[in-house]
Structure formats: structure tokens, C-alpha cells
């Protein structure tokens, strides 16, 4: 890594790698929002650059060229893990952070793992869904069948049952693509036809499809990871905020003030980063208390998400 160029004063050069689209209304966009915030906040201490929408075949090339021109490389999304580990090994004097990687991965000397713990978040959305459901039947729609998503789906079920025992939880659906609304819609249609009236999701742009499905069947869904506004006619029963951007900011700050450590850093409710937060729409007081109770239980680890 050469922290030499960048005209005159010596800025921290940061490369943020977003393999997906920064306008996917999901994981990547949330990370991108953090990137923008950090860019403003550290305008005079750090120089940020980013890459979005990269083909799996090209991960390694992008990471390599990032590593050879930056001091800190933040790679967002578990799918980059294999390449990132190899590149990190090749550039010992560059710092690497992977967001959303396998939560059991071994950190390297120069590679830390930040875990958004979507599972915990989904435990809450499951609960919220169950509380909002009138038919006591809920479903979950995920994008790709990645471990993080599979676990989240399981947590969603656990949460639902924990909040309203006896709730019917449909088999989670994985449409194979986070950004295909047509497929997400069909999956949602199928779940609704199977009796569910509130749907949880981790499908970025796929949300648009689910939205159509629930609107036309007056069912409801859970929003997130980027929170929106609750309103009467909105099909959203609740929003979960899973702030990936917070982790990008945290990484940069950590390196800037030298507190960066090569560890597995959790960002869920159990952590003190408050990157996760659920907003339950409507004014059902006891539902909200139930949710707070569950959140507390997660925080003090008296229950596990999955």
C-alpha cells in the first residue's frame, strides 16, 4: 500500500468494495449510505473511493487493484470472502475489513470481520410479523440461499413463534436473486395463497415485487434494512433497520484513531453499536412491549436467534 500520493498531506486512502448495486434498496445501498456519510465526516482525513456491481469473476482483480492503491480496503458481502482472504494475504501492510462474512471465519493479522447479525434482526421481524398477523401465519422470502440469509430465515421463524406461540411459519422461500421483483412477487403470491398474511424478507430490489403481491391481496410485509415511514395505507407492518453503513463508518474511524483490531466484531443487538432497530407500525402497545422484551432477551443473550 502506498500512502504517498494524494497530493501533499497524507490522507488515509480507503477503498470500499460493493459487489452489488448501490441502489438496491438493501444491503449494498445501506452500506453506500454509510460510505457517503463517512466521506463527508472524514473529508479532510481520509480519501474514499468505491467500486460497485462487480462480476464474481472480477472480485479478485478489483480487490487487488484496491489493495495496491489504498491503506484500508472494506469489502461488503460474504460472497467476496474467498478472494478477500487471498488478496489480504498478499498485501500484509494493507488493512482489510469484510462486512457480512462468515461469522465463524478466522480473522487474519490484517483482516477483520464485521458481522451485521441480520439473524438477530430477523428474529425481531419474525416477532413483529407474528404480532401483526391476523391469520397467525407468516412467511419469509430470501434472495440467495447464503448462510447469513438461511440463518436469518430460521431466526425469523423462531421470533414469530416466540412472540405468538402457535403461529404457522411457512417454509422460507429463496428466489435465487436479491434483485428480481418478478420472482419475489411470485414467491409472495405463493406464500399468500398458502395462507400467510405477513411476510418478512431479505431481497433488496425484490421488495418491489413483494409489495405488489401484498397490496393486491391486502396482506402486509416487513420493510428493511433501510427504514421507511409507517403510514395508514402502507403495506408495511414494521421496518427493521440493519445499518451496514454504520459498519463502514466504524471501520474507517477505527483505523483513523488506531483502535482497529483483527477480530470478529458483532454489530447486532448484543453489541453496543445500535446498528439494529425495529419500528413497529401502528399503536398496538402490548405488541410493542412484547417486542422490547424479546429485543432485551436477545441483547442479554438469554435467547439465541437461531
Amino acid at each position: 500500500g502506498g500512502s504517498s500520493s494524494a497530493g501533499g498531506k497524507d490522507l488515509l486512502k480507503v477503498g470500499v468494495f460493493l459487489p452489488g448495486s448501490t441502489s438496491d434498496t438493501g444491503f449494498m445501498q445501506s452500506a453506500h449510505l454509510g460510505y457517503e456519510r463517512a466521506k463527508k465526516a472524514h473529508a479532510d482525513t481520509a480519501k474514499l473511493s468505491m467500486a460497485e456491481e462487480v462480476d464474481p469473476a472480477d472480485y479478485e482483480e478489483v480487490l487487488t487493484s484496491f489493495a495496491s492503491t489504498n491503506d484500508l480496503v472494506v469489502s461488503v458481502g460474504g460472497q467476496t470472502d474467498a478472494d478477500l482472504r487471498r488478496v489480504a494475504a498478499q498485501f500484509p501492510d494493507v488493512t482489510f475489513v469484510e462486512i457480512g462474512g462468515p461469522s465463524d471465519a478466522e480473522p487474519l493479522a490484517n483482516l477483520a470481520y464485521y458481522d451485521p447479525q441480520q439473524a438477530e434482526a430477523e428474529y425481531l421481524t419474525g416477532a413483529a410479523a407474528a404480532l401483526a398477523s391476523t391469520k397467525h401465519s407468516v412467511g419469509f422470502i430470501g434472495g440467495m440461499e447464503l448462510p447469513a440469509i438461511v440463518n436469518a430465515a430460521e431466526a425469523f421463524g423462531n421470533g414469530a413463534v416466540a412472540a405468538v406461540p402457535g403461529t404457522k411459519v411457512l417454509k422460507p422461500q429463496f428466489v435465487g436473486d436479491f434483485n428480481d421483483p418478478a420472482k419475489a412477487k411470485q414467491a409472495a403470491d405463493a406464500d399468500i395463497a398458502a395462507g400467510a398474511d405477513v411476510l418478512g424478507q431479505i431481497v433488496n430490489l425484490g421488495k418491489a415485487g413483494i409489495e405488489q403481491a401484498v397490496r393486491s391481496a391486502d396482506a402486509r410485509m416487513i420493510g428493511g434494512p433501510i427504514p421507511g415511514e409507517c403510514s395508514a395505507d402502507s403495506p408495511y407492518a414494521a421496518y427493521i433497520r440493519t445499518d451496514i453503513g454504520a459498519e463502514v463508518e466504524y471501520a474507517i474511524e477505527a483505523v483513523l484513531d488506531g483502535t482497529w483490531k483483527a477480530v470478529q466484531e458483532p454489530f447486532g443487538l448484543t453489541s453496543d453499536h445500535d446498528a439494529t432497530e425495529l419500528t413497529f407500525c401502528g399503536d398496538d402497545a402490548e405488541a410493542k412491549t412484547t417486542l422490547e422484551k424479546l429485543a432485551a432477551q436477545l441483547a442479554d443473550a438469554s435467547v439465541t436467534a437461531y
Partner: protein
Amino acid sequence: MIAAILASGLGFAIPLLVAATGELVSERAGVLNMSLEGMMLTGAFSSVIGAVESGSAVVGLFWGIAAGLALGMVQALASVVLRADQIVTGLALNALALAGTTFGARLLFTDRGAEVPGFDGLDLGAVGDLPVIGPALGQSVLAYVLVLSVAVVAVITSRRTSWGIAIDAAGEDAVRADWAGVPVNRVRFASVLLAGALAGAAGAQLALSEVHTFTDNMTAGAGYLAVVAVIAGRWRALPTVVATLAFGVAQALQYSLPAVGVDVPTGLLLMLPYAIALLATAGLVASSRAPSALTRPFARSATGR
């Protein structure tokens, strides 16, 4: 559940049907449009832009059709005028449409939250509650309009009309059709434009009726399926319709099976529509033959005998 499968199956089948109808005419006239996929995608893309810009779904529809026409124009230029290789240019146009719309989406769709005006499903009241078919009927206005216009096209281009005969003649043997006084290349050009317009409309249907948004590569192979539907339908109208429905239902099964708790690996479900398409072609096509001049360009100066 059956009802649900039918409903969402139809939702997927209608765009296929619309696109396939245009492609059927074009292939009967002797031009194969691999670019159907690209036409649909571009149609979806610009229909959304149109709808957002104008705030009216109908305007959006027309933008979609216009975009399909534009791509059809390019394909026709390549296939008919320049006599280029239809398969390569088609695949190239698909690549172009995919990259182009992705690029455009980056530049234009910065605010994903924006409301996209679209066509909502009809509320048919009592009809909608019919057993089995009820839900399937709750399609959008646009869907009904499209299916109707497709039917009209099918009638106008049937073997019973002069147009139909001319189209078949151009696709069976352009030289002799020309000798008989049929303006072969004009017929072909028009057919490709028709395919483009309908594919554009199909894209609009996908974007404005189904999901009210555009996402990169949102057609995800639907265009290819439409082409296959024509072949599986042995270049005849009704079998083609059946094929599109079959593909639609196959797609729907993909999600209905898990919903009812049947545990099938995602991979297998992803294969389903294409596997069915393959079996269909393998099972049916052999018994028929394609228009003899399919993918063969025509130029009068070259027919000196």
C-alpha cells in the same frame, strides 16, 4: 393452491405470450429475433422511465412500445437490409440492451423510493371469487388489452388472409415470393417491427403491471423462453399459446411447491421452466419443420437465374 399457481403462472405467461406472438409472425416471415429478450428488457426500462417522467402508466406503456420498436428497427436493419447473421446480431443486441439498461438505470434511477405509476390488477368482485380460475382473472387492464390485441394480430396474420400467405411465402422461399410479386423485404421488415413493438409491450406489462419497477436484467431469460415457445409451438399460433402457458405454470410451481411445504432444492426449481421447454422442443419440433428461409436473408440482385 391450484388457483394461485394459475394466477401467478398467467402473470408470467402473458408477457411471454405477447412477445411470442410477434416473434411467431417474424419467424414465419423468415427472420429469427434472438433479440426478443433485449426488446423486452428495453421495453420494460423505458416504460418505467416514461411512467415516472409523465406520471402516467399509459404514457409509460407507449414509451415501452416505442423502445421495442426502436430495437426492432435496428434488428430489422441488420437482418433484412444488411443481411447480417441474425443469431449473432440478436445476441449482440441482447448484450447491448442488458448493458445499456443497466447503465441507464445507474444514471436515471437514483431514487429507488420513487413511486412508479402502473396498472393494478382488476377487482372483478364476484368473478374474482370463482374457484380455481377466479384469482387468475384478476390481471391488470393492460394484460387484458394486450391479450386482445395479440388475438387481433393472430387473426390478421393467419393463413386465411393475404397478409398471412405473403408472410409465409416470404419465410418459405423469398426468391419465389418475390417472383410472385410479394415485397419480401418490406414484409420481413414489418414483421420484425411488429415483433419489436409487441416485445416492448410485453416488457411494459412485466414492469408496469407485474412489479411496478425496473431492475437490472428483470426479464431474466423470458425473451429466450418466448422464442422457444414459438419453436415448441411448431410455428403455429395456438400451440405457441399453450407453450407460453406451460412455461408460466412451470415458473409458478417454482414458488408454490415450497409454499405448500414441498422440499425441492432451489437449483432444481430454477431448471424447471427450461427443462420443460427443452422437453417440449425435443418432443414436438421433430414432427415439424421450420420455415425454409428462416434466418436466410434475401437480396434480389443475387437471384439471377
